């Protein structure tokens, strides 16, 4: 690994100042499960690594606030799937978090890091999208909130501005009954990246939400406010990579249909069980 300087701020103000000072020469270190691989293979060669795990305001926490569950940026996947609040309100996110990497990776990888990497195959993103997650970010220009659907551009690129970092992710608590489910296709059970990853949420007002990933440069969200959802139109937006070694485009498109049906059935069952 190429040498770099290591900074370990303890306040958000210090973290923002360090990122502003070093600009593009700095990289944020949260869980490190992606960053350290890229530092080692030379994809990234920052002069400064800013470790945000000791920032007080970002300490691991899942709290109920303002009609939402707030997940701080330091919260790891293990915290997500072990949280009774998450299990009660957001089972599709719990199921997705359980599928990330291995125990060792889930103990380290943060939810915020999963979205900031903007991988099209990110396991937690379809669930976060169907739950209408909002991203809190802070930077030199102050704080702002970004709907998650406006956060992704393409693989590895987000709408975060230079010097901005994510502080928390909010999941709005539903006002009525909701049934939701997560589905994922991999080449092998266990540690693998998804060939298709998706989530469905249905509510008692008749709304259908579908989000899928690994089928184009960024995960996509579709919402139908009532009646039969136009699934064929939604599937037509998929753009699976023609060159991926993980799965052929035809296979991914076929599995998208199958997994959507399975997720719809599971979500319907959960919606009825919530009655």
């Amino acid at each position, binding site marked *: 690994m190429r040498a770099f300087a290591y900074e370990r701020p303890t306040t958000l103000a210090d973290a923002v100042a360090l990122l502003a000072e070093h600009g593009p020469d700095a990289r944020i270190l949260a869980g490190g499960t992606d960053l*350290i691989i890229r530092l080692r293979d030379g994809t990234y060669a920052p002069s400064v*690594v800013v470790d945000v795990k000791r920032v007080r305001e970002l300490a691991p926490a899942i709290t109920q606030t303002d009609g939402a569950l707030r997940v701080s940026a330091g919260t790891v996947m293990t915290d997500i799937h072990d949280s009774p609040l998450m299990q009660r309100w957001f089972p599709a996110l719990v199921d997705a978090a359980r599928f990330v990497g291995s125990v*060792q*990776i889930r103990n380290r990888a943060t939810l915020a890091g999963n979205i900031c990497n903007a991988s099209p195959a990110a396991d937690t993103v379809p669930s976060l999208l169907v739950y209408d997650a909002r991203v809190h970010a802070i930077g030199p220009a102050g704080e702002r909130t970004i709907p998650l659907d406006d956060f992704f551009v393409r693989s590895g690129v987000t709408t975060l501005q230079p010097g901005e970092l994510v502080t928390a992710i909010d999941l709005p608590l539903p006002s009525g009954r909701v049934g939701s489910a997560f589905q994922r296709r991999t080449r092998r059970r266990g540690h693998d990246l998804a060939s298709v990853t998706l989530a469905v949420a249905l509510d008692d007002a008749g709304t259908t939400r579908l989000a899928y990933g690994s089928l184009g440069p960024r995960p996509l969200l579709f919402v139908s406010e009532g009646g039969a959802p136009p699934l064929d139109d939604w599937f037509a937006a998929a753009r699976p990579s023609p060159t991926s070694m993980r799965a052929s485009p035809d296979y991914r498109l076929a599995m998208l249909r199958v997994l959507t049906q399975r997720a719809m059935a599971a979500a319907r069952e959960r919606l009825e069980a919530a009655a």
Partner: protein
Amino acid sequence: MQVSLTLNGRIRTVDVAPHHTLLDALRDDLGLTGTKECCLVGECGACTVRLNGRIVDSCLVLAAEADGGEVTTVEGLAPDPGQLTRLQSAFIDKGAVQCGFCIPGQLMAGDDLLRRVPHPSRAEIEEGLAGNLCRCACYEQIFAAVEVTAAGEAPAESVAAESSSVRELPPHVVDQ
């Protein structure tokens, strides 16, 4: 930079470069070579250690991140040198060890699983050890070792390593 950590119950301070990993520090600076370096991308689990109560791939943690933390390596699983935990003895009894390279990581993950889930199902064992690859493909024997430990069938804790070395070989191991 100076990094202080509680390593297998002892406070140790080392001078490490910021770009060196916890794995580098354990093996090269602290002389604990039980933790293995293998894939360096968090896939194989050979470098698994416990950090602040949770297992991690030490190849994906900077040494600096462990500053002030508590680290347990395979050398620290048993209470004293020359002793083995019940899980370690069960690995020997079940013939779970072939080349041995992945075993420190397997033991750390198995130990972690049994701390969290004292009586795991087969599926929970498979998931608990999914981050640890064994290229000798001893998975059945490794899972069996975890199962008998959970069932209380493994030899009592703190079996002396010396006596384990004269233990009869499991039936499927050919004595050469």
